[in-house]
C-alpha cells in the first residue's frame, strides 16, 4: 500500500474540563485525495485540524507522509501539513502581505531572493496580482485576505493542506474562485466545512463528524443523496443539485 498523506488512528481529545471533543477517530488520506470534513457547528472539525498539526495534544496516532507526530517531529509535520485557519486575519500578522508570505520560507532558511520569488509565485497561484504583496492585510477584501493567507501556506509547498471553514465570509463568486484554485493544487486536501455545495464541488469523499465522533466516511454523492442521513447528522443538502 502506498504511503498515506495522512493516517489518523484512534484519535481522542478532551478539553481541560474533561469534556470529550473528539472520540476514537480513524481515517486515511492518500496523496492527492480531496476529502471534506463535514459536521454541524461544534462537531469538532476545527479541534481535529488543530490536533493534526500538534497545536492541541491528542491521544492516538497521527502520521503525515510516514512521519509520526510527536514532540520531536512537530516541526517536520508542520512543514508537510499546511493549515489554513478559519479566520485568515490570524495568519496575516505582519505589516505587509510580502512579509507574511515570505515568513515561512525565510524561517526555513531559504535565501531572500528565492523567498521573494516563491512569494510571487504563491500569490499568483491564488489568483492575486504581485502588487498585493506590498499591501497591508487590512486593505484587502475578505476574499483577498483568504487567498493571501492561503498563499502564505502554499509557499511552503505542503504535501497536505487542511482548510478550516475556507468559505467563511466569501460570496458565491469567491467560493467558486477558491474552489477553482484548490482543484488545481496537486496536494492532498482535508476541507473542514459546513458548506455542502462547496464540499461537493471539491471533494469526492466526505468524513462526517457529529459530537466529536466520526459517524460516516462515505462518497460525497452517496451522502448528499441520503436526505435522512443528512438530517440525522445535522447537515442541510445544498439547494442546487446540478454540477454548476
Amino acid at each position, binding site marked *: 500500500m502506498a504511503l498515506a498523506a495522512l493516517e489518523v488512528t484512534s484519535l481522542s481529545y478532551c478539553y481541560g474540563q474533561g469534556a470529550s471533543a473528539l472520540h476514537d477517530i480513524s481515517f486515511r488520506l492518500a496523496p492527492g485525495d480531496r476529502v471534506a470534513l463535514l459536521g454541524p457547528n461544534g462537531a469538532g472539525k476545527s479541534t481535529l485540524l*488543530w490536533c493534526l*498539526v500538534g*497545536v492541541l495534544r491528542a491521544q492516538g496516532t497521527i502520521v503525515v507522509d510516514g512521519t509520526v507526530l510527536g514532540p520531536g517531529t512537530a*516541526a517536520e509535520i*508542520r*512543514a508537510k501539513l*499546511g*493549515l489554513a*485557519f478559519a*479566520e485568515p*486575519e*490570524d*495568519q*496575516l*500578522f*505582519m*505589516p*505587509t502581505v510580502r*512579509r507574511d508570505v*515570505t*515568513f*515561512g520560507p*525565510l*524561517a*526555513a532558511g531559504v*535565501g*531572500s531572493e528565492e*523567498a*521573494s520569488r516563491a512569494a510571487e509565485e504563491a500569490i499568483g497561484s491564488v489568483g492575486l496580482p504581485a502588487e498585493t504583496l506590498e*499591501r*497591508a*492585510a*487590512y*486593505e484587502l477584501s475578505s476574499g483577498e485576505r483568504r487567498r493571501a493567507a492561503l498563499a*502564505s501556506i502554499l509557499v*511552503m509547498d505542503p504535501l497536505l493542506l487542511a482548510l478550516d471553514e475556507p468559505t467563511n465570509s466569501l460570496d458565491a463568486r469567491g467560493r467558486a474562485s477558491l474552489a477553482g484554485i484548490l482543484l488545481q493544487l496537486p496536494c492532498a486536501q482535508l476541507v473542514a466545512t459546513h458548506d455542502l455545495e462547496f464540499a461537493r464541488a471539491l471533494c469526492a469523499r466526505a468524513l462526517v463528524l457529529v459530537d466529536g465522533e466520526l459517524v460516516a466516511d462515505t462518497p460525497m454523492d452517496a451522502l448528499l443523496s441520503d436526505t435522512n442521513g443528512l438530517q440525522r447528522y445535522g447537515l442541510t443538502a445544498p439547494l442546487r443539485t446540478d454540477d454548476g
Partner: protein
Amino acid sequence: MPHHLDLYVKRESALHRLDPRAKMLAAMGFVAAVLLVPTRPAWPTGALLLLLIGAAVLARLPARLVCRRMLSLVVVIGMPFLLSRLGGEATRAAGEQFAARSLLVAAAFLVLLASTRAVVLLEVAEHLPLVSVFGQLGEFILRGADLLTEEVVRTNRAWVLRAPSATLKVRLTGLTQASMSLLARAAARSERVGAAMVLRGFQSKLPMATPTPLSWSHLLAGLLFALISLGLAGVVRWR
C-alpha cells in the same frame, strides 16, 4: 495610507525615492546638529529650519498637511515653553531651547515619516544592532493598531446603531466598557497568531530578508545632508 499608524504621504519625489537608510542617516545627522547648536543667537536654528523646509519641499509635501501635523506638536511642546516664560532668564532660555530643539527634531521625523513608509523604516531598524527588537515589535504594533482601529470603528458603529440618540458621553462610556472585551479578543487572537507563527517555523526571532546593498549615490546624498547640518553646528560652536 498603508497603515492606520502610518504618516506616509504618497508622492513622486526624489526624497521618496531615496533609500530609507540614507534618509535615516541624514535624519540622525540633522538631529545631532540640532542638539549641538545653541538657540541664542537664533540664526543657526533658523538655518537648520530652512534646511528642513528644503527637504520638505523636495519631498513635495503639502504645506497645509505639514502645518496641521505640526500644530498638534506645537500644543504639546508649547505648554512647557509657556510655563518657562513664568521663570527667570535661565528658565526662559531653557524653555526656548527645549521648544526650538523639540520642534526641529519632531519636524525632521515628520518629514522622514511622510516620505518613507513606516514598515520600510521598521525593516531597516530590524537590521540595526540594539534597535532590532524595537523594529520587530514595531511591525507587530503597526499590524495590531490596524486591527484595533478596525475593532474600535466596528464597536462604535454597533453602539451608534443600538443607541442612535446616545450622547457622546454615553458612547464614550460604552467604548470604554467595550475596550475590556476588545482586550479579551486581542488576547485570544494573539494565541492564534502565535500558533500561525509556530506553524510557519517561527522559533525565537522574526525571519528577515537580507537587505539589498545601499548604493553609493544614495549614501552620499544622505551623508551630504547630515554633513551640511553638522557642519553648520560645527561652525557655530567654533565661532
